[in-house]
């Protein structure tokens, strides 16, 4: 974790440099802590793999994959007699019932899963950190209000609401990310972040900042929130998991208007009657496995970060 303040430095080193050095040093130590835990590394590895996977798609589409055949939404391979076709050198993961390449769909969808997960995580963290810091800092009525609200939001059954909502409205990627982000932002994440903020609030450097004349706004955004970021980052990971999972479930039920995603791939499988057919495994397993592993990867990274942020969990 970064140190709070560098007010006592006497040599003429520019402030930004000190900060950068401190940041790099804390990054190094934290990385060392993180790297101690193979579970986190596995998670990170999977995420990087999927990141490359997503990046490779446009490259492949522009080089070796003609879009008429390999386009994930409207592609069609006329040279294969029957779709869905099993994996072959031409289609490494086979084709779906509409004659589209499964691997291409899988890769194409990855970027949207990332976008969705990260967008909703950012929304959550922005909301939760702000609310957490503000309610911890001011306390009183603001605190009560937000905490009661959080209590309410925790109790709300999440997926059922999303199901009803998306059945009756047009829900695309962005709407979904926002809804998920807002719901988790006002809920449990806020409570955790606030309790962390409370602990930071009583630290001497906050006191020091106040004595040296820092306004509330300054203290919250320059001192409190930066120190909350590690734990926010941790909760981002869990939100990403939740967001990807929710999207997949809703798309699987055919409730979103998303054109292509892992959930939609499974939905297509069901629409064409291949869901309970275990001989056409390439229609079901790659997408399901991708959802599971990417969700797991973010969760694993989150857990490993937890051990970094929360020293009591460390072995030693």
């Amino acid at each position: 974790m970064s140190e709070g303040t560098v007010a006592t430095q006497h040599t003429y080193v520019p402030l930004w440099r000190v900060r950068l050095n401190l940041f790099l040093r804390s990054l190094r130590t934290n990385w060392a802590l993180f790297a101690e835990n193979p579970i986190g590394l596995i998670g990170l590895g999977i995420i990087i793999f999927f990141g490359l996977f997503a990046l490779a798609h446009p490259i492949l589409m522009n080089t070796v994959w003609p879009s008429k055949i390999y386009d994930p939404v409207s592609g069609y391979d006329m040279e294969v007699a029957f779709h869905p076709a099993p994996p072959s050198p031409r289609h490494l993961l086979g084709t779906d019932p509409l004659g589209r390449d499964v691997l291409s769909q899988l890769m194409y969808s990855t970027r949207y899963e990332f976008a969705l997960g990260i967008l909703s995580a950012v929304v959550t963290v922005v909301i939760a950190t702000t609310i957490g810091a503000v309610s911890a800092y001011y306390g009183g009525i603001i605190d009560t209000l937000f905490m009661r609200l959080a209590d309410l939001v925790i109790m709300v059954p999440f997926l059922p609401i999303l199901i009803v909502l998306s059945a009756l409205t047009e829900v695309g990627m962005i709407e979904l990310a926002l809804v998920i982000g807002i719901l988790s932002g006002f809920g449990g994440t806020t409570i955790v972040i606030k309790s962390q903020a409370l602990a930071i609030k009583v630290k001497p450097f906050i006191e020091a900042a106040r004595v040296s004349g820092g306004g509330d706004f300054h203290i919250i955004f320059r001192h409190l929130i930066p120190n909350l970021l590690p734990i926010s980052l941790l909760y981002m990971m869990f939100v990403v998991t939740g967001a990807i999972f929710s999207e997949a479930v809703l798309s699987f039920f055919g409730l979103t208007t998303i054109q292509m995603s892992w959930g939609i791939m499974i939905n297509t499988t069901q629409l064409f009657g291949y869901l309970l057919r275990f001989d056409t495994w390439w229609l079901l397993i790659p997408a399901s496995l991708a959802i599971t592993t990417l969700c797991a990867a973010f969760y694993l990274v989150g857990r490993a970060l937890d051990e970094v942020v929360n020293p009591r969990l460390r072995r030693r």
Partner: protein
Amino acid sequence: MSKKWMLVMALLTVVVTVLAACKPSPTPTPPPTEAPTEAPTEAPTEAAPTEEAPQYDVYRIGIFEEPVSLNYWNYLGPGSSVWTSYVLTGYAASLFGLADKTFAFVPVLAKEIPEPYKEGDRWVIEVEMVDNAVWSDGEPVTAHDVVFTHNTCKELQLTQNWPNNCAPLGADVTAEALDDYTVKYTFDVTPSLGIWNAGVALAPILPEHFWGPVVEEARSYIEGVAEPEAERPEDCEAEDLSDEEKAACEAWAAYDEAYENARKTLYEADPTGSPVFGGFITDKWEPGAFVQRSQNPNYYFKGAEIIEYSDGTWVRKMPDGTTLQLYGEATGDVTLDYVSGPYAPNVILSIYGSQDSAFLALANGEVDYVLNPLGLSRGLREKAMQGEGIVAYDNPDYGMFYLAFNMRKEPMSYYEFRQVFDIIIDKEFVINEVLQGVVYPMYSTMPPGNGFWYNPAIEENHPYKGLTREERVNLAVQVLKDAGWTWEKEPQWDPDAEDVIPGEGLKMPNGEPMPEVTILGPGPAYDPIRATFNQWISEWARELGMPVRSELTGFNNILGPVFVNADFDMYILGWSLGNPAFPDYYEAFWASWNDTATSGNFNTPGFNNPDYDALVNRFMSTTSIEEARDLCFQMQEMLADQRPYIPLFYKRVTDLARDNIEFPYTEVLGGIEAAAGFQTDAKPHFR
């Protein structure tokens, strides 16, 4: 309480819940002989596989949605659903019906087909009924039952599908029992095909001796309630209502409520124990699990032989020897010959939660037949066919999927614009290449499966059928050019790449650039077939330089613009076409007075053509089926030329059943499941 207790408790709860009823004993109601010996935790793994096959003679049918209600009034009212129809088929009697396969108009309880005659200013049809038909409880089916049902429908102003049975097309129809077995109908207009043959004559008949008291109770709500004298105000929610309008609103609200209460009484009434006419009595419904039907011992047509000939002759021989022969001299080949059931002692309609599990059950031999009105996907078909002795029966569906134009707006109002879409849409390509033949291409607004009404000339003479891609593009460009459309850069066929070099800057004949238009349609998650068509069509249009965009969206978002506001550019949807014996949809979909924008009815394109209106008027009022057919042919030609719709495809209905089920016939429009005999007349051969 310590933690340990909590844990133990948790464990116990589970064990007990698992154990709550865990005494495996495969025979019902056995005397307690020995104590169960299994350890509780082992129970789940032990019990399942080796249970004896049940020894009932049951015709097992799989369905995958719950019926709405077993109340027949409700079924034709607000609770109409295809699933309900399956569990209630054959429930009601009727005077006339449609012949198997040919859909010819034939008597059921009537002795013969009567001729209408004029009496004063009203038309009259007198129907003589057979005098020996009975309900399942042995009571005779009489003219009083007919009049009772008719009057209930009219007096309670029953909704949804009922008006078509007692006041079709808004006609004023009265029914009266001249004696126990003669019904006299009178009409204020000519009893045309739509009013009589496809309307009143087919109306269901329900037993007065069972439903009489219920209807009496329902009627008590509307006792003395008269229609308010003031006209129904347009909008009772408006802010500035005058006192008169307010009074009128209240009067109408009270009136509506009285009728609503009356109807609700009827729709909510418990149908348990109601006598039925058909082959099976629906006697048990376990919600979420199954519906059980058992044989009606008094079924009037049990043992009747139905014979049809290729010249259209229809013959019914009753077991007592009475024979009825219609529509020909019984020359030509026999196309149908079967003896009416019911054969199975019991029918079980087993409710599965999804199509997937229903077909898995078929493959595993848990059911004999799966009723599947949703269309069978390829994967499910293959899966089910892996089961032993499964037979697939393919039939054309009586429906139409189409692209519609909003003819109220430019550029859809241009004849050539619509013509160009007809040119560029290569149905065979999308269906055969992309979708691999899951549906059939369609050219006329009448599905070819309905042979009597289908005008084969439309497809045979279709000018653009079978053109190559190059020919289509060149022709489309030519048509647009001739009509005064211009491009900044004209689309070109590139023979080397075998592809189009897209046009740019398309201007309409009035010199303005063509506005962007969207094709609304269900998304790939709802219906991949329509979504695929949608994408290909907009792609082809874009190649011509037309700014056309596919908007794949949820169903609810299509309904509003299309059926309520009539504010769209183009859309792709489908219709199920109703009664194949009389295609009155030619009036509903394209007559100018049914314009959605002005009347709220179903002429969504806003097709407004006086010539067509004249044809449709004659079509709806004729009593001659031959004339109606001729008019129908002309209407099909006119629609194929004017193109308010471009028909795209019709679906295939596939019935999958085990080979031990012998259906009376398997080739029929709409599939076996839509035909009357799939339960009553099917012979299950029990192994």
